[in-house]
């Protein structure tokens, strides 16, 4: 009975995993098809692969420029976010006031508003400060978008650090800086790493602001993908090739860091 249950569970897990993975698999397959093969009905599972779509994408678009923009904006926004979120979460975790919970909920509530609702004001502000189509502009908006999640994640981590350790440090004469630098950071390094990884992935995949606030210079890989969608004409194979090139770096990165990512996403889930 136990063995049957184990088989069923394993089978179900594989089925779910396959379902989740299938779109990526299909994307990968379509990238190596011709445009005609990509739209054929019934869909083709067996075909002679071609590299023509990758060659076309490479010749039409400056892939390295987009990749560089993605890398810079996601790394910079993650670092900037940590710089703001870590002290904020520390303060909220160890120096709680009556309003701390409300503040946390309010911060999270900003994520519930659709981004398009503030597009025009943000666009006008960016125009005034000459931030349109700049990496700095995208870094700022990515940081702002990720901050609520970063604060929440770090807050959950810091809350689990025993207060007694902090009190002991204070007894030994540690200043606020010492406390943060020599106690909180070493103890919370796992949380910081998980938060950073998650934000890196979120920034890398962000598309709404990238599409709307960049044009010729600061476009990220998300804008590269969008440029291959067409209202008139066949485009699926080229779009798939562009998508595969855009997601490949972050998939490899995620593969190596999956343990930390899962830990970060599930932290506090079973409290």
């Amino acid at each position, binding site marked *: 009975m136990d063995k049957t249950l184990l088989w069923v569970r394993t089978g179900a897990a594989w089925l779910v995993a396959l379902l989740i993975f299938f779109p990526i698999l299909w994307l990968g397959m379509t990238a190596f098809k011709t445009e005609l093969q990509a739209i054929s009905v019934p869909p083709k599972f067996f075909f002679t692969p071609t590299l023509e779509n990758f060659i076309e994408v490479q010749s039409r678009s400056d892939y390295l420029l987009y990749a560089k923009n993605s890398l810079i904006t996601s790394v910079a926004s993650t670092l900037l976010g940590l710089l703001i979120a870590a002290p904020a979460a520390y303060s909220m975790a160890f120096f709680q006031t009556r309003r701390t919970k409300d503040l946390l909920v309010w911060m999270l509530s900003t994520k519930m508003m659709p981004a398009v609702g503030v597009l025009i004001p943000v666009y006008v502000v960016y125009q005034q400060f000459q931030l349109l189509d700049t990496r700095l502009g995208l870094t700022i908006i990515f940081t702002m978008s990720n901050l609520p999640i970063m604060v929440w994640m770090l807050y959950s981590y810091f809350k689990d650090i025993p207060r007694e350790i902090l009190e002991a440090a204070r007894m030994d004469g540690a200043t606020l800086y010492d406390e943060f630098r020599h106690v909180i950071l070493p103890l919370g390094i796992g949380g910081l790493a998980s938060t950073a990884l998650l934000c890196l992935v979120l920034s890398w995949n962000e598309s709404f602001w990238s*599409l709307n606030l960049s*044009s*010729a210079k600061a476009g990220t890989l998300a804008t590269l993908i969008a*440029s291959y969608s*067409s209202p008139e*004409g066949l485009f699926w194979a080229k779009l798939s090739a562009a998508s595969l090139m855009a997601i490949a770096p972050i998939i490899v990165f995620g593969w190596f860091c999956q343990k930390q990512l899962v830990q970060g996403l599930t932290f506090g889930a079973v409290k």
Partner: protein
Amino acid sequence: MKLKLTAALCLVAFAAAAHADTELVIATVNNGHMVTMEKMGKFFEKDNPGIKLKWVTLEEGTLRQRVTTDIATKGGQFDVMTIGMYETPIWGKKGWLAEIKPDAKYDIDDMLPAMRQGLSVNGKLYAAPFYGESSMLMYRSDLVEKAGLKMPANPTWTQIRDIAAKINDPAKGVYGICLRGKPGWGDNMAFLTTLVNSYGGQWFDMKWKPQLTTKPWKDAITFYVDLLKKYGPPGSSANSFNEILALYNEGKCGMWVDATIAASFITDPKQSKVADKVAFAPAPVQVTAKGSNWLWAWALAVPASSTKQEAAEKFIRWATSKDYINLVGREVGWGNVPTGTRKSTYANADFLKAAKFADAEKAAIISANPKDSTLPKSPYVGVQFASIPEFQAIGIATGQQMSAALAGKVSVDKALELSQQAADREMKKAGYYK
């Protein structure tokens, strides 16, 4: 000594500034002709050493959102914008676009009159057409012949229904007719507006009152839903240009009424399994021929907020010139030249030899008149749209209802009633009437 050094540095800086390139940021939509333009850009840069081209290629919906946001807020992100025949008159009137002033070499009289009219306001050209299109009937000549039929020179919708019934063979995977059903003012409503026009209908009367519950609308939409339910492919309510193109190229559509640009795809053996079995006819008519085929152009415009208007206009004059068409013909092939803009293209022997759809396309474009596209007099310009800012919202709302009616989720009468309410609300809100 210090003074000399400073003076020398200033001179170097001035010289560098004087030779700095003018960088033009061009926003385009991703389609074959635009991609070719991007590739041909090197020739323009070679002839104009002081100008560098930077391309921003976007999906149609995103492009529309981006350029609208930028032009409305005077963002100045783009120096050349690809816009359509819908936006041009509206933005031109608002003073958002710089007037295009062609020189003698440009030969403006060579431009097809319908295109020039549709992109002008009070005689001033605000965008130059890069490529234009109308709509027509594309059909499988082999299937029609096999059924012992002959396509009339100017078919009516009733005749099209009869032919669809005869060639419809779902068991063999062939459907009588494929038409757009996906909701959107540029998707199903582009086609449906021409259908309603041909049934004698219109969007608004002369007092700007929506006319969606009138007899022509009811007759046209009832016919459309019935036609696709009986002889259309399953899931038609989700089909637009690309979906039907895929079906047609696989040999699954007997007939298709859509953009003339489709002709170049379905006659291309690299893309289509039925490339040698395609024939063309004018878009079907019913009560009237007025407005039975649409008119659209992707055009290049200079936003008034651009600081590089002179260079931008120079580029537009190049990209929409006869010389550019010849350049594409030479470099890429005559089957790939942007069509629907100039009379000279349709007089070019090389083009006529390469494009078997040329005559049908030219006839369709010439016959469309955006200023007189409905049987009753209408206050708006546009064949498949009304060129007013409120139309987008009305078109989208109506498109959703029509798609729902096609999917059987709501009756035709109810769909039209709800669309009329939405249109009425939008027009009242905009102050057209109380």
